[in-house]
Each structure stands twice: as structure tokens, then as C-alpha cells.
């Protein structure tokens, strides 16, 4: 069987590309880090890949707003090839800044053909400053919610770190939130170790309904604020010296993606 190929997109200020590529490799894929200029020059190269990953970082310094400038670039240069990529049944993962890009470019939640410049200004969901208005780096627990999203294992709670200053999910109005809830768009919620939602620090940014990640209508796009690629080794857990051997939680997401790609694509 052919290896699953992952394109990890680089751009000015993206800084989690290496470990994201490595996480996919650990999960059995072949990953290639590609600068966005190369993809814009030759969008058809996307066809050689089955997973597209937008890694974390500070694309273009998060100037104007987190992920905004890169989202603008994607909207104006790469919308069509990425839309085809998704329509062909392939997978897209956005982590932290990558999630912010997917939201602001309209791929998530991806309603009503929201991707593209015309409706770019009418997005239903966005992401803004944390309630505690500063950058925050801490470990959080995530409860998988959507049964549609191929990246998650139902029932398996994940302990992985978050690290961001703009991670609070906001919706345009209550109807948007209701649709996210009722139609299974919520991929992960922030919870405590026992699975209960709560205020800071359980929900570290004040996201509405404790939303930590979203999926789209196909379940093949996942965007999340915390960083699964930072828990792919036992010694990354903040109190690993108190724990025995165990599989690092973050790896699950990459394994699920690669296994799905292997069996479906």
C-alpha cells in the first residue's frame, strides 16, 4: 500500500511545521513541509497529497488578527484547489494558528459555501482574544464530541497543551451556536480530568460552550486550538515523572487521520 502523504504548509511566522510533520511520520505517513509560495506557484501539487495540515505559529505575526493575513492569502490564491481537495474526500487539519486560518478563510464550519471572498465578510464563527487577555501556555483536557469527525476516537479524552493569546471561539449569534451544537460541528470541548466543563483554567480562553475544536459537515476537516503534536512522546506530559508508561495522547489524532486515509483513499 502506498504511504499516506501529508502536506504541511509553511508560511512566514508558522513555527510548528517540523513537529507536525514529525507527528504524522510517527503515525505512519510521509510528510513534506511546503512553503505557501510553492503551492501558489503550483497548486496542482496538492493532488499528490491526501492530508493537508495547517500547523501552528504566528503566520504574518498574527498582525490585524490571528491567522487573518494567511487566511486572506489562502482565500485569494488557494480556495479552489483546497475546495477540490476536500471534495475529493481528503483530510484537512488545522492546529492553533492553522485552526484560526481555517475559520477565517471559511473552511470551518464551512456552511453555505462560505469559502471565498464574496461571503468572507459574513462568517458565522470567529476566534478572538482570550478572556484573560494574554498569551497562555498550559495543559488542558479535551472531550471528543462530534461522532462524525474522523480525527477523533469517541470516548477518548485527550490531555494536550494549549498555547495561544487568541483562542476564544465566538459565534455571530445564538442561532449559530445552536446549529454548531445540534448538527454536530463541535469536535472537542475543554473539560477537567473527570470530563466536566468549567471556567478558567479548565476552559483556558473563555470559548463559548467550552469549544476547543470544530469539524465541518464531512467530518474530514478538524481545527483545534490545543496542540496534539506536542504530546507525541511520553516525556512531554507535564507530570510524566509521576506516571507510568502510556501512549501519548496527541498521537491519536494523527493515527486516526492516517488510518482513515489508508483505508478510504
Amino acid at each position, binding site marked *: 500500500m502506498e504511504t499516506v502523504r501529508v502536506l504541511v504548509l509553511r508560511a512566514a511566522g508558522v513555527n510548528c511545521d517540523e513537529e507536525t510533520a514529525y507527528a504524522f511520520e510517527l503515525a505512519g505517513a510521509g510528510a513534506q513541509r511546503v512553503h505557501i509560495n510553492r503551492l501558489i506557484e503550483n497548486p496542482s501539487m496538492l493532488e499528490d497529497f491526501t492530508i493537508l495540515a495547517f500547523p501552528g505559529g504566528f503566520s504574518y505575526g498574527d498582525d490585524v488578527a490571528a491567522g487573518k493575513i494567511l487566511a*486572506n492569502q489562502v482565500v485569494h490564491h488557494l480556495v479552489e484547489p483546497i475546495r477540490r481537495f476536500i471534495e475529493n474526500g481528503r483530510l484537512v487539519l488545522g492546529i492553533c494558528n492553522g485552526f484560526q486560518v481555517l475559520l477565517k478563510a471559511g473552511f470551518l464550519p464551512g456552511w453555505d459555501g462560505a469559502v471565498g471572498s464574496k461571503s468572507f465578510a459574513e462568517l458565522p464563527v*470567529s476566534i478572538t482574544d482570550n478572556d484573560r*487577555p494574554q*498569551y497562555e501556555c498550559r495543559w488542558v483536557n479535551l472531550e471528543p464530541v462530534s461522532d462524525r469527525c474522523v480525527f477523533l476516537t469517541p470516548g477518548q479524552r485527550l490531555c494536550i497543551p494549549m498555547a495561544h493569546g487568541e483562542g476564544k471561539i*465566538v459565534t455571530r449569534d445564538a442561532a449559530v451556536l445552536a446549529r454548531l451544537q445540534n448538527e454536530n460541528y463541535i469536535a472537542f470541548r475543554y473539560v477537567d480530568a473527570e470530563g466536566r466543563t468549567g471556567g478558567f483554567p479548565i476552559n483556558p480562553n473563555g470559548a463559548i460552550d467550552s469549544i476547543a475544536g470544530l469539524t465541518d459537515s464531512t467530518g474530514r476537516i478538524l481545527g483545534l486550538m490545543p496542540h496534539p503534536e506536542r504530546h507525541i512522546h511520553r516525556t512531554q506530559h507535564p507530570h510524566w515523572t509521576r506516571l507510568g508508561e502510556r501512549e501519548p495522547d496527541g498521537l491519536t489524532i494523527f493515527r486516526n487521520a492516517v488510518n482513515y486515509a489508508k483505508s478510504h483513499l
Partner: protein
Amino acid sequence: MNQWRIEVSSRKGFADPRGQAVRDELRELGITTVEAVISARVYLIEAEMDAAMAKRVAEELLTDMVCQDYYIGRSAIPAGPVAASIIEVHLKSGVTDPVAESVVTALKDMGVPNAFVRTARKYVLVGSITDSQRDLIARNLANDCIEEVIFGADAEPPSPHTRPYELQLRDIPILDLDDEGLLQVSKKMDLFLNAAEMQTIQAYFQKLGRNPRDIELETLAQTWSEHCVHKTLKSRVEMDLDGQPIHFNNLLKETVFRGTQELAKPWCISVFSDNAGVIEFDETDAVCFKVETHNHPSALDPYGGAATGIGGVIRDPMGTGMGAKPIANTDIFCFAPPDTPMSEVPRGVLHPRRIMRGVISGVRDYGNRMGIPTVNGAIYFDRRYIANPLVFCGNLGLIPRDKAFKHATAGDLVVVVGGRTGRDGIHGATFSSGEMTHEHDQIFSHAVQIGNAITEKKMLDVLLQARDQGLYSAITDCGAGGLSSAVGEMGAEIGAEVDLEKVPLKYAGLNYTEIWISEAQERMVISVPPENAERILALFASEDVEATVIGRFTGDRQLVLRYQGTEVGRLEMEFLHEGIGKQTRKAVWKTPKLSEPNLPEKDDYTSELLAILSSWNVASKEWVIRQYDHEVQAGSVVKPLVGARHDGPSDAAVIRPKLTSDRGVAIACGMNPLYGDIDPYWMALSGIDEAIRNLICVGARPDRIAVLDNFCWGDCNRPETMGSLVRAAQACYDAAIGYSTPFISGKDSLNNEFRCEDGSRIAIPATLLISGLGIVDDVHQCITMDAKRAGNWLFAVGLTKNELGGSHFYKLRGELGANVPRVEIARSSETARRIHRAILQGVIVSCHDCSEGGLAVALAEMAMAGDLGIDVDLRGQPCSQDCTRADMRLFSESNSRYVVEVPADRFDAFARLMLNLPFGQIGRVVEEPHLTIRQGGSILVQTDLNAIRSAWQNKIG
């Protein structure tokens, strides 16, 4: 061209964190009449676009339409019954505006080319304020050095456009000047050169039979600055040590360097010669480490100064050998206590709380954006840092061992890459070498540099590719002194010629000297063999990084500077680098006559313990730590905060820099300025012992530890201050040899003094920061300081002595004392080796060093971090004979001590390993969340984890 003004603010119902933060700050300033502050970001765009396009730009690019509103034009003050005023903060002309640069990029993507963009912040203050309050608010919202304030709704920001420069040569007549005249020239041009140096320069030009050009004098001043050449530490010294004369021909070479040289460790690859010290990591790679200070700029502009401090030190490993990949940051700060009353803050100085917040934000924003984990740090508070805060920024890099050296060759091209050159940072090197005064914020505002982390990150991404493709022959960073230092250094052996008009500028109007000495950030200089030029320029262009050929390395050992074909300067490299005369400095150290305070003994020391836990120096720095990304690059093994609830203070950090390898690097530091008030020799030794202990605690190999020095002192023209520096340098040599631990790099920042308006001076305490790195063979063997399991035994290793001098216990009572902690180096070194062996054998499950606050604080921290109780009887504590009192046993800060936790079934193995060392069983870990410290029948400390937590946490924030 049309001009558009677009204002963006939070929509009603969504938070406005910046406005809220400003309102809170106003409360702190005592202004209570402002009910609310509404903040907006203002974009000023000059471009060929019509109203429809402007609307699209507002909606699609600048505004988050889910939670923000925009206004095209200048929005009026909201109507209503309450008075309101507007303050707008604009960047001064020429100041780097990263957001504006990104908007230009995005506009291009939207089909609007050639836009010119500026951004500003607008604040609407709801409530009535007086004019003087308004001015006070403005001073707090804007930094005079880089920002301009506009009041009201009608005023317009100043025009940003600058005029092009026309060449005007400037000779400086010095040939016939006497000493006084020479000094006047030095002062007038802010050269910071002394009479002897000016005479040397005069003699050189007399020999040439001409006067120097401004650019030549400036080049010499940069290259000969304290900052660049460390002339004090390298000077000849006549030392009087309590009446006994000691002579040094070169202080640094005979102390710090000498230790490293005598040790001649085969695993040291490059020491004291490059931008960072380099040691072996594994078979294929090396690690390099550098710590710099950015004190003066951080005093003037805490945010920008600290940001460019970290930005600058990251370029040190990037400019080491053929360029390293930055893998970790460290940050150590010294401030005055944040609760200092405003009335104690001298004129011309920012309040310590503002400095602290600015510095932390600056380091955070730059370090996080670079994608480098900030894994280690410390904050130290002392009133004497009020006018001279210290900002130490360090960076660790990973470099292939076969890329650890560089060699520029005659014929190579001089290529500048990265950011553009502007007027920022001019005279940074010379300015940082002098003392500060109350007028500095006016005179040296141009010495402040403004950073843009993404420019540096982009440059780094391409440089590493170019390095691996072997496209250049040498690299160095453009730091202090700008191009003058970078090109001057790189071409020192061969000579170079530079065409200054080729240097890409941020804006027009810079003269040739400004281009040459600007310290604009995010620039590196590489030397490129001509045959690689095309490939490397294309590589940089492919990721939108500017790279420009500006000259050539020649082979004639001359430095030749041209502007549009006209020669504007010429110096011999030999004179530039070797011409500076050696100076002799007088140094005196008189051991101060101090005595121990006479404090009554007490029965119970619980309140003292809690008070130390909540003191500025000891209290949790979690508020700061969590603002730094310490996880990026996915190599984190031992984090700054550890334990059951992730809130215990780790002794050191460990990272795994290669995703595919289990080998690690531990990073830690040691510093204790209070000891220096008693004796800088023991201060230095204590700092080194502490750094080593911290590394040992997490599992670093004692035979693979290297350290860095950062000397921050006052004015060393005063023999007493110089004498204190010499004492510390002597300790560095003794420690290096005694521990067999080499110094691999270092840096000094002298003249950390402030001259107040009334002429009085404030000098910082002698401050030596020791940063250490140690290799960990397998990170799975690392341990952490949190108590692990009820039932385990606790041991104290190392002797507790009657050494409360300079301790936090004395500090509580306003005492200094006399008995400063000393070090028995041989025994300390043996203890470290044994502890390490015990860690490798799995005999110890937690280990914590005893430092600030002594044994009592160490135990409290272990219990809290483990979320477990500790029950201790001090009768088992190994003590010296004169350590007779309970307060000494609890709080003495004697060096070389550890508390370790040993499972009961490892007791014998542990005891065998510790044979012949001072160690004793002091108690055990217990389930109940209490800390009890007794001595036989009497209970000295009795408290619980909640009380410990509430004392230790939430002090700083």
C-alpha cells in the same frame, strides 16, 4: 493616491480587553473618573482604491465581522451625557510597524498594489478628566521614545514621508586639538571614547596627514565600545586586596578564560571566540549557548528593549559557526519591587511595575513569535535596580558539528539579509556603554530599536536551508554597531569594501554614517562565494526575504566605505581591531566589617516561612511563565513548572532538541546579588554552585556541564567597583578548575548607574548571572522536584552551616549579616557526582536544591508540588558544629545541599552511594497535606498545603 482611515473596535457585547486593561491602569494611576475606555485600532492607508474597495478592505481584511465594527473616516466621540476625550497613539516617523507591513502584503493579495500603510491606537476615555490627568494618561499609553500622542478628534498625525539624502561629506577636525578638545568631540558626537582613545585616534590620523571623516570616527567608536570590545574586563588591573597587591595583565584572560584553557575539555568545540560558546551534544550535533543583556534600552522602552534583547540574542547562535537553529530561550530579569511608591521613582525613570510588564510582554511577543520555547528564567527584585533594570536574554542553538566554524575568503561577496535598515538603534553600542541620566529618554530615544519577529523568523527559515546547501562561507549577526561591527569583524583578517547606497532602507533620508552604524533589527551579514550568488539570492527571494550584495571582501586588509562611488571612509583593519590601547585600572577590595544581627530565637517559624514564600524573589513566577510558550518545537521534558498540579518550581529545564533522539539538554541559572554586598567572591561561587546544583537535580551529567558568565556592574572607573568585579572574576577561575566546569562564553554590561537630577547616583548591586547547560544522556532518566509518594524517605545531603548572611530570612528583618554562604568546591563537586549516580540508578525519585530560603522553603515547595505532606525532624539534618540555632537549620542558605526522596526499598542502595558524604534522614512524605518540621519534641513549622499555596502563588501578576 487616495487616503483612507479605517477604525476598528469591538462590537457591543464582545470584550474590549485592551480598553479594559487601560481602564485598570488608570485606576492604578489613581484616576477614578474614567468609567470606561473604548479602544480602536486605526489604519491609515494610502492607495489607489475607491470607496467600494475601501469597504471591502474594511470588511474582509481589517474587521472581524463576527465580533468587531468598523468606521471609515474619523469616528466622532460618542454622543451622550458624559464627557469623553480621545487620545491617539501613533508611531513616530520611521519606527518599524509590523502590522502595517502585513497589511501591505494582504492588500497586494486583494489586488491593491503599492499601498502605504500606517497603524495607530485610538482610545476614547469616557468620563471627565483634567488636562494634567490627560497628560499623565498619555505618558502611560505612549512611549515618548517611539510614539507620538495626538489629542482630540481634529488633529492629524505627522506626515511619515521623508526626504531623500544628498551626499555631504563631513570631516571632523581633530589633528590640532588638545585633550580637552578631543574629549569635547567625543562627547558631542556621543562616541563615549576617553582621552587616551581619542589620542590614539588623533595619532593615527596625524600619521595619515588628514582629519578623520565622521564615519571613520563612528566606526572606531562602535568597535572600541565597552559593549563590543569589553575593554574593562580585558584591561590591566592593579588590585589592592585588603592591602595585598595583585597584578593582572588581562583580567579576563587570567581568570575566566584561563580556567577554560587549563581544563581544555575535548568536548568544548568553540569557546569565547564566536558569537556563542559551542560544546558537543552527540555524535553529529553540537549545542551553543549565549546570554546577553539589554539593560539600557529596556529602561527607556521596556517592551521594545526587551523584545529586541531576545531578538538580538537569538541571532547570536544563528550567527555562530555557519549558523545554529535556535532551540530554547532563557530570560532573567532584575527589577525594583513592583510595589515601590511612585515618590521613590527618580525623574526620567519609569515605574518598576511598568518596566516589569513591558519587559515580560516584549520577551513574550518576540520569543513566542519566533517559535522558540522559553524554558528557563528567574526574576530578582532589589530597590537598586530602579533606574537600571537588568534584562538578560539567552538562547541555546543546535548546530551540526561540521558547521561549527566559518571562514570568509577574499573575493567573497558581502551580503546583508533580513530586515531593512532604518534610523533605529543608532548609537546603541556606545549608549549602552555609558551611565544613564534623567535626560536619557530625550537624548537617546534613537538608540531604542524596534523589532519584528516575523522578519527574523523568515530569515532564519531560509538561512538554515542556505547553510545546509553550503551556499555561504561565513555568517555573523548585525548587533551592536550594526554593519560596522558585522562587516568589520568578518573582514578583520582580509579587508572589505562596502557600497553603502546599496543597503536596502526602510525609508529615504539616511546619511552614509547612519546606514553604516544603524542597529536596525533582524539583519545578518553573510559572505558568499561569487559563484553561489545567484542561487542564494534566488533562495531568499523564494520566501520573500530580502538579500542584497553590498560589497566584497578584498584581501588588502583595508576597510573601504563608499557612497554612490565616492569614498567616504577608509581604515586599516589592523588599526580598527588592534589599535585600541590597553588601559590600566585600579581596583580595591576591602573586606567590609560586618556582623551578624542579634535576633532572639523563637519557638515557631511558620510565619517566617510563609513570609519568605510570598516574598518577591521566592514567590511563584507562574503568571510570567505561562505567558511564554515553553512547549513549541515539541521537545519539552522538564518544564519550568512541574508536579501533580503543574505548579511546582523546577530547578532546571530539560529539552529534547532532536525529535528523533532521547538525548537532552538541561538549562539552569544561578544568581544572588545580595551575597555580593558581603563578598562578591562568594557571591560568584554561590551562583556557580547553584547553577550546577540545579542542573544536577534534574539529571544532567556533572562531567558535561558548561557555564556562561554575565557580569553586570556599576561604574568600574571607581576602584571599589572594579575591585568587586575582580573578586567575582577570581571566583570564576577557582570554580571552573574546582568543579572541572568550563566557562564557554560570556558578556559584561558595566556602567549600570543612574545620575539623578540632583547629581546623586544609583548603582545596581554587583550582579553576576551564571547560566549553565548540561547534557542528559537519556531524558527518560530525568527526575523532578515534586514529592512523589507517601511513605518515601527524605534525606538532606550536604552540610547546613551557620550561614544566614545575605539570606532571605535576614532580608525579612532588614538585616544583611556577615556569614555569607561559602563553598567547599571539592566536596560540592563530589556530592554532585554521587547524586547523579543515584538518579541514574533510580534510587532517587525527586530531588530539589536548597537555595533561597534554605531547607524550609525547599521542603515546602516539594510538598506543594507533589500535593503531598511532609513530616521532618531536623535531628537528622547534617549540620556544622556552629549551626546551633533552629533559624539557621531552617533558613541558612548554605551551598551544595539537596533534599532527595528515596523509596524505602532503595534505602540501602542510597546510603551506600552517599558513603562519607554529609547526609542524613530527615523525614518522610506523608498522605496528609501538612508540612511539619520539628526538632525532637519541639515543632518549628506547622502548616498545610493550602497556606503554602496561598502564600506562594498570585503575588506577581
